């Protein structure tokens, strides 16, 4: 690690009078560690902030926003996390989570005025809600639509009757 640089011409005699010229330390390992730490801190500080997804709800749940049946795209998530979709008052169809994005893209491309309604059972997994909102965000970004037209409501008995047997 450290070496003492001695004056030339040591020997038995020289030991007594050995001059201390200077201590030289090899700082390479310390600098290595310092840069390692630097890299660590640089990487952890920038990537640690969690992402957020913005959602807005109507101020009062009693106020009804009128949407034409043909513009209303409904996704229902049942207690067992099964997803169903329909437009207006058409009968709901069961789909897989992967199909949500395709359906959204098709509908939003066809009709940019589409309002999406997510009806989710209180017992369904929270990740399902995030998945659908995420798909919606992705599709809207792809189509260049910025206006967020979606709402989240809980499923009621009527919905359960509608999709319960499917």
């Amino acid at each position, binding site marked *: 690690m450290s070496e003492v640089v001695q004056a030339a011409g040591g020997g038995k005699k020289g030991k007594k009078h050995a001059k201390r010229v200077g201590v030289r330390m090899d700082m390479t390992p310390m600098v290595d560690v310092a840069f390692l730490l630097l890299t660590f801190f640089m990487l952890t500080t920038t990537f640690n902030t969690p992402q957020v997804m913005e959602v807005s709800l*109507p101020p009062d749940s009693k106020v009804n926003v009128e949407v034409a049946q043909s513009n209303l795209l409904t996704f229902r998530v049942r207690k067992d996390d099964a997803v169903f979709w329909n437009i207006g008052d058409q009968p709901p169809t069961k789909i897989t989570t992967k199909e949500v994005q395709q359906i959204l893209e098709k509908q939003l491309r066809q009709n940019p005025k589409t309002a999406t309604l997510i009806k989710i059972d209180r017992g369904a*997994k929270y990740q399902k809600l995030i998945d659908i909102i995420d798909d919606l965000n992705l599709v809207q970004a792809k189509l260049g639509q910025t206006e967020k037209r979606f709402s989240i409501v809980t499923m009621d008995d009527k919905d359960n009757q509608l999709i319960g047997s499917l």
Partner: protein
Amino acid sequence: MAKAKLKRHGFRLDMTPMVDVGFLLLTFFMLTAKFKTDNQSISIVLPVAEADTMKLPDLNIAVISIGLSTVNAGETPDTLIYYGIANEKDRVPIYRKLNRVDPKTGQPLDDASLVKTEEVLLKKSEMEEAIKATRLQNPAMRYAINADKGLSYGYVDDIMRSMQKYGATRFNLVTESR
């Protein structure tokens, strides 16, 4: 000629300035690093999302965390709700409304310890009270729901409805980018 006799010495670069700057940056990052002050009493596995979203702001944000208790993780763990205010100046009046007491003495907590409290445990029944107090204290406050992805939607729904009731209709769902 002197020129021809010149010996080639080993190339030596003075690295002192680089090391100086390196240490300066290291100190800077170490001091500014915000470690995820994870709440140790609940575990939250964030839901994953792909879409480009924004970052969680540092100020003017109230975070409602819902997660599974880590205390009795072996059995069916309890679902606990924590409520945290980012702004230190708003913490005291809001937490004060929730009547938090020191678990050791049973006395109400003093201002100094309330300011340092990042999150308080909340009963389901206190949710509305907490949001109401926050709305009154700082109307610019934004809300974020930080929930475990495996939870039932019902827990999130309860919070969303209480927020809706007090006019906090824009809020954020905390996710993790894929």
